[in-house]
């Protein structure tokens, strides 16, 4: 309310009182009171919003604090575990390949040599002595081939199983993405509250069911000691309960 308005109202009030115009005087008094009230309401409104913002900012601070203290270190451990798992899987695969390549090469070579001899035999160019040698070599070759192929088979199975890491690391990474998104949303809120401009809430990525713990990362998820670490643990637990 401006000084002029106040002065004008005051002058009107005095005049109304001098004129003994009670109604007019009351009207003016109501108007003055009304103005004071609305000013008061405005002040209260401003204070309330400030309080709300401050509380909101504390809440977000608390949330960011929690993320920083627990979830982010956890997330780092989880990603470290993912690195370890992928390295182990690559290692197992390469080891199997390195073991199998010489086996395959040797079998290929033997087969080629024998094929050559057999070709000469079919062309009637193989002397009998050499035929006898080839015959022995063929017997040996069958033995080698069986052994080699069995090695290759088991090696391929090892490589197959080694790919299982992708499922587990995928689940772990999903959870870390979730956490990062959480952090991102909190940051956006913080920025918004502190009066800065932000691009608004990012689109949601697929979220993980919060109730499911997922793959247990050693040192992160097994602190309470209620995680089965091996198939034997699982089997023991089930049989102890009669299943």
């Amino acid at each position, binding site marked *: 309310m401006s000084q002029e308005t106040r002065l004008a109202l005051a002058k009107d009030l005095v005049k109304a009182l001098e004129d003994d115009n009670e109604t007019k005087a009351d009207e003016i008094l109501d108007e003055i009171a009304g103005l004071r009230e609305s000013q008061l309401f405005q002040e209260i409104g401003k204070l309330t919003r400030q309080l709300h913002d401050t509380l909101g900012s504390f809440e977000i601070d608390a949330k960011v604090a929690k993320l920083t203290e627990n979830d982010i270190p956890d997330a780092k451990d989880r990603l470290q575990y993912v690195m370890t798992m992928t390295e182990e899987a690559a290692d197992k695969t390469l080891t199997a390949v390195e073991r199998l390549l010489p086996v395959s090469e040797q079998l290929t070579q033997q087969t080629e040599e024998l094929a050559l001899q057999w070709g000469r035999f079919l062309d009637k160019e193989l002397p009998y002595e050499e035929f006898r040698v080839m015959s022995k070599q063929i017997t040996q070759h069958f033995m080698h081939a069986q052994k080699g192929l069995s090695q290759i088979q088991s090696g391929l199975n090892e490589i*197959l199983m080694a790919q*299982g890491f992708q*499922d587990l690391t995928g689940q772990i990474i999903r959870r870390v993405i979730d956490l990062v998104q959480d952090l991102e949303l909190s940051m956006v809120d913080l920025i918004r509250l502190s009066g800065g401009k932000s691009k608004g809430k990012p689109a949601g990525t697929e979220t993980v069911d919060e109730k499911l*713990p*997922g793959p*247990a990362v050693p040192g992160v998820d097994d602190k309470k000691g209620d995680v089965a670490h091996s198939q034997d643990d*699982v089997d023991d*637990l089930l049989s102890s309960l009669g299943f």
Partner: protein
Amino acid sequence: MKILVVDDFSTMRRIVKNLLRDLGFTNTVEADDGKTALPILEKGGIDFLVTDWNMPGMTGIDLLKAVRANPDLANLPVLMVTAEAKREQIIMAAQAGVNGYVIKPFTAATLKEKIEKIFERIDG
């Protein structure tokens, strides 16, 4: 013997499918979620269910419960293959009627053993 393999990660479905083939089970079908698996089961013809737990649409435990609640499917042998390794979850699955529980990472030998055990119990 027709087997349904359910897991939201296709790599895992492929691994299990190959292991089953190695054990002589060549008739396998796949589903990527409990939600897509249930209609396949309800249509009939599946003799064995291998399922993950953690799936976005319908979880393995809910799929198991739905199977056990359906009179046509109640006796279907179910093997759970999952990364969920907390004691209370293992117990929950057992109480819901799962026939076997294998945790990831698993070996081919373990999978073979658990499948054979389930079939023994059925035949026995």
